[in-house]
């Protein structure tokens, strides 16, 4: 099977046999791939009934659990890697969740849409409207994205929370690293990709 671009970037970072938790696992593509190719012990959390049905059909360990209810049912160091792709912006308490991810997991990978992308900046500056773009497709009134942030915002949060950024990538929707993005990531990159650890590296 071929993985969506972002997921294959993540899959490369996960060791064979690892214990993986995918927060907001969607249709379970990443976990299905990791189970088949890396023999991981993986679980995904989701609340969407259609996603859960698809995960069950794929044989993915999907657990019906709302991220806003917290992760305190998982013990410290239960996982090697906790993954959350494009979900951070829609949870109630992103700061708390990040800390929890690094309590239950040794490392985590977080991706989110960049609110500092030039298209967003242009829409606010020129039109005076809340941005709607390919990577942030919802109108302000019906968006699940209640905590949009820019790369800079996110890195400030990591600083405050004492989380270490092990790796940062800026990617577009095909998850290729565009040249302009690496030049001015906070403006040119639509999707942020962070690999985080505890304390200092």
């Amino acid at each position, binding site marked *: 099977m071929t993985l969506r671009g972002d997921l294959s970037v993540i899959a490369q970072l996960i060791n064979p046999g690892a214990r993986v938790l995918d927060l907001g696992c969607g249709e379970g593509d990443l976990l299905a791939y990791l189970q088949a190719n890396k023999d991981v012990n993986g*679980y995904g959390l989701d609340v969407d009934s259609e996603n859960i*049905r698809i995960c*069950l059909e794929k*044989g993915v*360990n999907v657990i019906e659990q709302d991220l806003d209810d917290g992760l305190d049912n*998982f013990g410290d160091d239960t996982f090697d890697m906790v993954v959350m792709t494009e979900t951070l912006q829609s949870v109630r308490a992103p700061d708390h969740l990040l800390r929890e991810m690094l309590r239950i997991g040794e490392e985590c990978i977080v991706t989110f849409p960049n609110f500092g992308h030039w298209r967003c900046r242009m829409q606010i500056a020129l039109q005076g409207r809340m941005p709607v773009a390919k990577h942030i497709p919802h109108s302000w009134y019906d968006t699940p994205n209640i905590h949009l942030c820019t790369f800079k915002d996110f890195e400030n949060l990591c600083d405050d929370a004492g989380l270490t950024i092990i790796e940062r990538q800026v990617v577009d929707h095909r998850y290729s690293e565009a040249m302009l993005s690496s030049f001015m990531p906070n403006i040119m990159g639509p999707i942020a990709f962070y690999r985080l650890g505890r304390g200092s590296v």
Partner: protein
Amino acid sequence: MSNPDSGSPPGNVGLVEPKSFHHPEPFTLQCGVTLPSYELIYETYGTLNADKSNAILICHALSGHHHAAGVHSADDAKPGWWDTAIGPGKPIDTNRFFVISLNNLGGCHGSTGPQSVDPATGKPYGPDFPNVVVRDWVNSQAALADHLGIGRFAAIVGGSLGGMQALQWAIDYPNRVKAAVVIAAAAKLSAQNIAFNEIARQAITSDPNYLEGRYADENSIPDKGLGLARMIGHVTYLSDDGMGEKFGRELKSGDLGRGSDVEFQVESYLHHQGQSFSRIFDANTYVLMTRALDYFDPARESNDNLVNAFESATASFLVVSFTTDWRFSVARSKEIVDALIAARKNVASAVIESVHGHDSFLLPLSRYHEVLRSYLARIADEVGS
């Protein structure tokens, strides 16, 4: 999908005939008592495939029995208790699976139990039928599987007390269970749950016709007590909202202003449930089954550590719970799921929105059935049926 009939509308298993399995050798129960032999009554639906890999065992709950699907005669008023879920094209698809459903040891629908004659006395066992626990059921079910030539079940499926049997199977016979489907169950009963069971037992044993359990010898039936036990149980199987929706404060008869002969719909319903149950169920079996529920606690042997209790299991688990089930709440299912994850077992879970309380597991709720169907279709693919 290898299912040739997928896409056609679900059908029924049709006419079924109960069969009997006679275990001729002595069978020692966990309590230490040895039964000289025993019978299990069971039914099967669907066809066992050539490599015998497509068998599903259905484990029944407190008041269930072997007749889970189909009808016994063309003019049967009602099909088996889980007919909505078992059949061709249904979530437990008999086009793909060979489904076995039995009446557990200690039951009152044909398997050896309190109503059977004790060969030592020539009289029914009655209250002297030995204590049976979930592990005894699993051991006797394993003997039935041997008899049918089934080495490994594609799935063991059960709701409530049936879900406990699925858990016990996965722990005790890891090589014989590919998947355990644990619905509206718990890894052990809460104090409140045991309390409800004790009230039910007290209702039975304090009926003057109970005669210390020897009512059969005197042609007596403790129907009032058993009916009351069932009424108590029934209230705990429904939710407040579900009862409100079904009955509200509607009157069956009388007038609120008049007093004494007032009867609310809900009262009438409970009386009916109690009375009809007391005609078909055996009081000693009810006491025995509630005790088995109370005693179930697989973590007990692992220093009360459920994670360690699951260590031996190799099955994949599906754990399903219902939002308004307060007898076996979502939190109880979560305990099972969390322990399985901590034990690094394969587990999936679904929490089904329903107003019907614990009873939900018997109802054809669309998302619930969709979850079962999706999960079991995957299992069928994996065993190649």
